[in-house]
């Protein structure tokens, strides 16, 4: 670690080091019309919308499979008698989710439980990647790819695309269930006729629409912002040589809290928003 660190220090400046770590392994269409991986952040930006961050996507899917695989593995030998260690642990998570859903969501919808569980576990796992030292996974990826300048971002929640993907999914569900429960008129009426009645429609829209889209922001940007900032601090700590070890430890310990809290918050906000979507009286 220390050895490679010196190499990094001599090969690139501190800001280059940080920027390199903030870049993604983007696959898309180059400016000259060929398809391939971007070799710099500028190149990645030039690829436009139809490019994909292979690193975030890969780790995201891997962690999702890990989460579902772990649960399926546990279910395959689960018992309603005395549970073993793993089963006990997973049951605690499921019961926590179940309790929160029961206390916060008053409608009737079988989707909410699995939705909340998936969000909590998946985001928790993604956030936990934060606790792995910042250079380990990128270095491993560079070794596998044989390219010492490969961009690789190990924490999917520091990618706005991933958190926005979650938020859009939840947003679609909010809109779908709002319309399903209240009807299209009822759903739109909530924006137009609330809180000041039908004579103040513009004012109502002005008040209600930002609140509606704030849900999206509070889901996507809060999670992204927290982990992007946390990651940058990890990177800066990674620049200070041997003294990074105690600092890294301190920041990691603090991040254990953030990791759990942010996953929990995302789950709770989702449940709350879904509850609002199912509530007929505003």
């Amino acid at each position, binding site marked *: 670690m220390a050895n490679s660190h010196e190499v990094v220090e001599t090969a690139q400046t501190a800001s280059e080091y940080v920027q390199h770590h903030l870049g993604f392994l*983007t696959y898309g269409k180059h400016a000259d019309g060929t398809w391939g991986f971007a070799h710099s952040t500028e190149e990645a930006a030039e690829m436009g919308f139809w490019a994909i961050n292979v690193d975030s996507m890969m780790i995201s899917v891997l962690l999702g499979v890990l989460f579902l695989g772990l649960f399926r593995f546990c*279910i395959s030998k689960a018992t309603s008698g005395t549970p073993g260690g793993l089963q006990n642990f*997973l049951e605690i998570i499921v019961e926590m989710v179940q309790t929160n859903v029961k206390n916060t969501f008053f409608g009737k919808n*079988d989707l909410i439980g*699995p939705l909340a569980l998936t969000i909590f576990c998946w985001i928790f796992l993604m956030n936990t990647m934060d606790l792995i030292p910042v250079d380990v996974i990128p270095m491993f990826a560079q070794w596998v790819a044989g390219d010492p300048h490969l961009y690789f971002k190990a924490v999917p929640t520091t990618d706005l695309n991933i958190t*926005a993907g*979650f938020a859009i999914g939840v947003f679609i569900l909010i809109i779908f269930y709002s319309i399903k429960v209240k009807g299209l008129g009822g759903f739109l009426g909530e924006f137009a006729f609330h809180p000041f009645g039908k004579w103040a429609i513009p004012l109502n829209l002005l008040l209600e629409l930002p609140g509606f889209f704030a849900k999206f922001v509070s889901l996507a940007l809060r999670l992204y912002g927290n982990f992007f900032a946390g990651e940058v601090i990890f990177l800066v700590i990674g620049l200070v040589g041997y003294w990074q070890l105690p600092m890294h430890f301190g920041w990691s310990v603090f991040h254990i809290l953030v990791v759990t809290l942010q996953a929990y918050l995302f789950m709770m906000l989702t449940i709350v928003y879904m509850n609002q979507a199912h509530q007929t009286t505003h």
Partner: protein
Amino acid sequence: MNLNATIIGQLIAFAVFVMFCMKYVWPPITAILEERQKKIAEGLEAAERAQRDLNLAQNKAADELRAAKQQGAELIEQANKRANQIIDEAKDKARVEGQRLIAAAQAEIEMETQRAREALRAQVAAIAVAGAEKILGHAIDQAANEELMNKLAAEL
């Protein structure tokens, strides 16, 4: 930071994972949890029932013990009474027997005395005659003093 198709990829992955979770993860786990809750509730109920049965049995046992003690005490009392009765009877019998023995002995003594007195009376006459003979130096005519002798003997 640029948004790109990753957002769509993540959205699809999210949808797939949530559906998988909803179909294959959530139902079995909640079923297991419910089953365990039911089992625990049943177990607690059974324990409560057993406790109630135990209390009943303990009460019954205590009652029976008390009854047995009472019965035992009664038996002992009865036995004591019977024993006293037997002792009293024995005492009475012994007293009666003793008195009978005493009476028999007294009767015998009486008879013996009578007999001795008869014998003595028979001999006194002879002794008196012999004494008088010695005093007088010769034989007294027995026939002449018969009456006198008998009178003497009767006075003894």
